[in-house]
């Protein structure tokens, strides 16, 4: 494997990992703070992408497209991301209020299947309202491909990685530097006692869902830019994999979820050239479709050796599951 080839895959893996990391954050926060598997999160990512599509089309209608546009495309993109994050946060809040809060004292399994059901409801409502056909995401910024010494990189890839890292850093700052962040960390530390000292559980829960959903919306729009075909089931398998990243990162660790997300992207992408090398060395005939099988076997092995995730602390007394 030449260096160029490796770098090309590395860049692809960075972009792919960005999506996992952004979505994994939402899972990780809810899981850390409320000890809840929010299985609807993958579908909130899908809803975020569709809201982004609607907002982008509306903005493009207002400001015009092409040479007649009043503002450049990147400004529309920034506005789209911000407005969609705001709107999708409310979707998260509604999901929390309608589906999770009434079940807070129910058995954990009930809350987990609630997530699955909310996910199915979101998917099928999408089909109900939009008809289920694939939709094209508008390309708000012109795609440019740069050739740097045989490595191909696009302006969108650079932007996606930078925006993702910026959002993750912002969240990290929020959690470590603000009082609300401190409350969230405290809640993650002890779910039972912390509300007793006056930290409002419901407010923290709402905030957690809102932030997670907003990040998922950002991921959805960036996803739409990179993979411009949206379908109602786009969040399902993607959500599962991001969930793997969240658990792999370790409970209560924002950076853990981010790093695990990037790692997952890296393992998935690198498995394909890995298969090719294996094929060549041992003259085998393995198809690149075995990517996920191999990639997730590797993840399983990692988890066997680090059952609490990469950065998770062992916990026992407060285990509620």
């Amino acid at each position, binding site marked *: 494997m*030449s260096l160029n*080839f490796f770098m*090309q*895959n590395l860049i*692809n*893996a960075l*972009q*792919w990992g960005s999506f996992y990391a952004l979505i994994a954050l939402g899972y990780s926060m809810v899981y850390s703070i409320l000890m809840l598997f929010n299985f609807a999160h993958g579908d909130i990512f899908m809803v975020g992408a569709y809201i982004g599509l609607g907002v982008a089309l509306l903005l493009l209608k207002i400001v015009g497209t092409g040479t007649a546009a009043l503002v450049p495309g990147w400004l529309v993109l920034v506005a789209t991301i911000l407005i969609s994050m705001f709107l999708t946060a409310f979707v998260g809040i509604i999901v929390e209020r309608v589906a999770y809060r009434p079940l807070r004292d129910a058995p954990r399994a009930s809350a987990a299947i609630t997530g699955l059901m909310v996910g199915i409801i979101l998917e099928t409502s999408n089909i109900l309202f939009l008809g289920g*056909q*694939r*939709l*094209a995401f508008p*390309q708000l910024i012109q*795609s440019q*491909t740069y*050739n740097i010494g*045989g490595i*191909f990189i*696009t302006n*969108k*890839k650079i932007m996606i990685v930078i925006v993702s890292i910026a959002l993750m850093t912002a969240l990290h700052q929020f959690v470590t530097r603000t009082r609300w962040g401190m409350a969230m960390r405290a809640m993650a530390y002890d779910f039972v006692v912390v509300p007793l000292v006056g930290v409002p559980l419901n407010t923290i829960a709402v905030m957690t869902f809102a932030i997670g959903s907003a990040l998922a919306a950002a991921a959805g729009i960036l996803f739409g830019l*990179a*993979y*411009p*075909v949206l*379908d109602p*089931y*786009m969040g399902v*398998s*993607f959500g599962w994999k991001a969930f793997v990243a969240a658990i792999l990162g370790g409970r209560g660790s924002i950076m853990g979820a981010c790093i695990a997300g990037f790692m997952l992207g890296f393992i*998935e*992408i*690198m*498995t*394909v*050239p890995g298969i*090719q090398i294996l094929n060549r060395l041992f003259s085998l005939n393995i*198809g*690149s*479709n075995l*990517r*996920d099988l191999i990639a997730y076997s590797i993840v399983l092995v990692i988890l066997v050796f680090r059952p609490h995730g990469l950065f998770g602390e062992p916990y026992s007394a407060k285990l509620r599951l």
Partner: protein
Amino acid sequence: MRKGRLLIAVLLCAGLVISPSVWAASDTINIGFPIPLTGDNPDLGASSKNAAEMYLKKFPTVEVGAKTYKLNFIYEDNEFKAESAVKAVTKLITEEEVLAIVGPQASAQAVPAGEVANNYATPMISPWSTNPNATLNRPYVFRGCFLDPFQGPVAANFVTDELGAKKAAVLYDIASDYPKGLAEFFKQAFEKIHGPGSVVAFESFTTGDKDFSAQMANIVASGADVLFTPQYYSEVPLIVRAAQENGFTKPIMGSDSWGSGDLMGLCGDDCKGFYFSTHYAAAGAQGATKEFIDEYNAAYGKTPDDVAALTWDSLGIMIQAIRNTGGLSGDIKADRTKVKDALGAIKDYPGITGKMTFTPEGDPIKCAVVVKINEEGQFAFHKSVCP
């Protein structure tokens, strides 16, 4: 009262005996069309009927041997249902005494209807059915379109001759029958031309995958001259995008699955300049095909779809077979078998969708059309490619 009934019954029986269809049988050839005039897909029936009516207007008679026969087309509604198709075909064969059948169009009706036609030893040609079972082990059943796997060799020949490819890459969904079959047939055909190992990258993914960057990096590194990807319209935009972003600047070739659905709405400018193989292309057609399109357009005010074009050709080849029998005996059963034998023996019938010759299974060896997605985003006729 009883006498009255008896009289009516006698008259009806007499009517049967001297009914015009029997009378006219000596100088009329009946051809049956079991097509969906109502039901879930009436457009299919409308296109078929339009093409048939146009044919009848243009060629109202046919000369068989030394005798001129009048053509008579009978349209029977199959309601786009399997059981109605069986009923329609049975009626056409036993009551209307048709010499041959053109239709049904969709495989769901053509497969059961073919069983009936074969049992009654009546030649039938389905213009549009791509399911192998429609003609399998049925000597009396033929089809007017090529089967899916056939596009593999077509694409291999096209990229070799037209694009000068010596090394090819393939990217396909291994979990879906159509792309998987086609990818393997392409590989076989390409390696037959260029030798083993000339397919330098044979990359796969599974249904639902969105990211093809890793596979594309492999393809770029393999140094392939062309990429063949027999995927559906919803995946093509993502594959084309991945190709661009990973520096794959060579041509991309697809199959008729590209043409289904709203490819250009999803893909936009990214897909322009690429090729795919299909049955028939209206834009940029030439010669007899253009003539057909213009006539159809003048008669019905719209561009004929592939169903209309394939019906036209299937009907044409059936009439040619009747002509080739060299004379009909008047015994409908013997004549049907004669027509079947003549149909199987036709060589290089010049259809508007390509030259047709039948294999012993009744599937045509015919040329496919390769279309290029032009700058206006239309699927324009580029070349006719034969296997």
